[in-house]
């Protein structure tokens, strides 16, 4: 049990810190949330800068510990998030790297790393939420193409993406998990319609994607036909690995800010509130350690696929994040009702925290996973 970093790791951290200080100084102004082309350019530019400095493929090739350090340091420095590059770097890219042909890797991976091509994700459907395998978007073979019809939901950056990693049903008669295939669909193909989807936070971070007889070349299929479920699971397992490192660092910063705000407003004199924040301090401190624990575990297993700690982490973290913003509301009092006031960012973040117990598998589904896969309780119910 060792929490000290090796000399190499510390050297990596020091180099990264130096580089970040310089790179962030040259960063263009942040575009507004509704400016999708601006956001694409901003995120792509940052990825290009990372590429030029040799940090582009950290999510793929570096050791889990290096990735941890990278995510920790970039968050601490206030660097841009992965943003529009999220799907390419963390979902589609790793999938293609693991399951694609040499030609597919050659075609799609370098532009992802250089920030030249943006990917979005076409997995969820209105009738297939946590039950992803219930997806109904159909792909019918027609010569060298699949003809795809259906709709997808909760797709980020669909407005500006070049590619969509798409799950389609290629054999409707096969058992649910069997007849699914994974396609790379060009977003400018005829028949693709993107409609922004406004969330309860008032923003349009997501979109619905409607597919009306969209032709996708068969060569764009990664993995075998009807083997898309397995291919996808390789991808999804990344989501519960180090995906939240930056967020935990950010939550710890937010908590400290909250404590300072409470001191300024005098709310700190209320022991009930103070102790509530103290408890959250314990919570996020432990979640940070759990991240290190999970990374250490991944580091030991050669495949680098995160273990059971991922579900444990996600269950607790999604709840803790909501607790954090509920505590923020208590600190703010009536100011938590105002979106553009002192409580501004906190109020918006509180709204978005509501999705954490639902997105990427509801807490209910996560508890099933923990109970059945880790604890070995019987399926069903």
């Amino acid at each position, binding site marked *: 049990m060792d929490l000290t970093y090796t000399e190499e790791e510390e050297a990596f951290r020091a180099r990264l810190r130096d580089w970040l200080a310089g790179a962030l100084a040259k960063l263009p102004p942040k575009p507004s949330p509704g400016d999708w082309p601006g956001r694409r350019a901003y995120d792509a530019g940052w990825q290009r800068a990372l590429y030029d400095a040799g940090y582009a493929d950290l999510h793929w090739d570096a050791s889990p510990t290096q990735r941890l350090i990278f995510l920790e340091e970039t968050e601490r420095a206030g660097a841009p998030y992965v943003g529009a590059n999220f799907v390419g770097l963390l979902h589609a890219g790793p999938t293609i790297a693991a399951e694609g042909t040499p030609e597919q890797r050659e075609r799609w991976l370098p532009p992802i790393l250089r920030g030249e091509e943006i990917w979005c994700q076409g997995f*969820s459907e*209105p*009738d*297939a*939420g*946590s*039950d992803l395998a*219930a997806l109904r978007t159909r792909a019918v073979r027609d010569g060298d193409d699949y003809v795809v019809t259906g709709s997808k*939901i*909760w797709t980020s950056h669909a407005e500006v993406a070049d590619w969509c990693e798409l799950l389609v049903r290629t054999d409707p008669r096969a058992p649910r998990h069997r007849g699914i295939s994974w396609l790379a669909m060009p977003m400018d193909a005829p028949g693709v319609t993107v409609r922004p*989807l*406004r*969330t*309860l936070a*008032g923003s349009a971070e997501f979109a619905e994607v409607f597919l009306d007889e969209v032709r996708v070349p068969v060569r764009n299929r990664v993995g075998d036909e009807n083997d898309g479920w397995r291919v996808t699971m390789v991808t999804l397992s990344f989501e519960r690995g180090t995906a939240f490192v930056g967020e935990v660092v950010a939550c710890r910063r937010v908590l400290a800010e909250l404590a300072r705000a409470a001191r300024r407003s005098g709310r700190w004199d*209320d022991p*009930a509130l103070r102790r509530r924040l103290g408890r959250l301090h314990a919570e996020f401190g432990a979640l940070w350690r759990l991240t290190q624990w999970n990374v250490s575990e991944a580091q030991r297993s050669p495949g680098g696929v995160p273990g059971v700690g991922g579900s444990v982490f996600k269950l607790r973290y999604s709840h803790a994040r909501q607790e954090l913003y509920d505590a923020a*509301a208590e600190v703010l*009092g*009536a*100011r*938590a*009702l*105002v*979106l*553009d*006031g002192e409580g501004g960012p906190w*109020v918006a973040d509180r*709204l978005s925290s*509501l*999705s954490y*117990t*639902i*997105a990427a598998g*509801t*807490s*209910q589904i996560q*508890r099933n996973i923990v109970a059945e896969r880790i604890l070995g309780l019987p399926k069903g*119910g």
Partner: protein
Amino acid sequence: MDFQPTEEQRALRAGLREVLAARFGQDALRAAVAAAEAGAPVVDRRLWRELGDTGFFALGLPEEAGGVGLGLPEAVLLFEEAGRALLPGPLVATWLAAGTVPGAAEGRVLVTAYDLGDGLVTYPAEADAVLGGSGPAAVAAGRPAVAAGPAASVDPLTPLGRAARSEGTAEAPGTAGSVGTAGTAGTPGSAGSAGTARPAAAGPGGAGGPGEPAPYRREGALLTAALQVGSALRTTELAVAYAGRREQFGRPIGAFQAVKHLCAQMLVRAELARTAVYAAAVTGDPVETAAAKLLADEAAVRGARDCLQVHGGMGFTWEAEVHLHLKRAWLRAEQWLTAAEAEEALAADLTES
């Protein structure tokens, strides 16, 4: 003792439910949100007037003053319905102002109140008058003085503004323009119930006791609690309906215990809060009112949260009704009496009894 609503009370509630179903259904709700977003007024003045015509605001006034001569028990039943429908507008303050602010009883004016902390006031642009002051005398001070302009409200149907004085109290920014005291004319309670009358007990000069809120603040808290109960009952219904309809893993999600038990707990919280609100309406007791507000706030906020969880991703769209319940519930929880204030009032009572 018969704590259940009488036939007349049930009929009153059913009547308002019918009116609101016809006049403020799902489509009207969506239209109101869209209008509010476009900067248009939120409150439908015609509907407000119609409510006035049904006696909604004049319910607690004596018949000789043009009122209906009923009491808080009837009022909480009606406010429960308004909360269920997510009806926008300063219903509570206008109700409290009936008999004090001309036109309030008839639904001709919108009256807001300094019922929030941090110098915030609801409906700053639309309200015709504002109820203020922490004493027993309710003060109508013309339009609320909005100094720093509007504030972007978390609830699209409840616009907020910053009042001129913003020391974070709920006092009136200006107490000029007093036109009388709220409902101090002795309103008879409904037959057989103790202390249901408007704040007749406290004379114009003094509040109920040291540390006890002025009667109109107590009534404000109670009616707000009734709105919360309506919201909690509605989100329970929404969750149950969705859980019975939505299929995942080959069956309705309501067949899964996790969802089933969320719904059961929603109902338990809503029913307990409802009982507390009805009881406080009947007794007029300030401690029971604090309990009612505390339990109703929790039932509404947690109910909306759980409803969101049951709805999964589909509850996260702007179009879904769920988030409006959550945001309104958050807002109401800050109005009149916060959880911390209610808990302290309850704790104080514990050592006195």
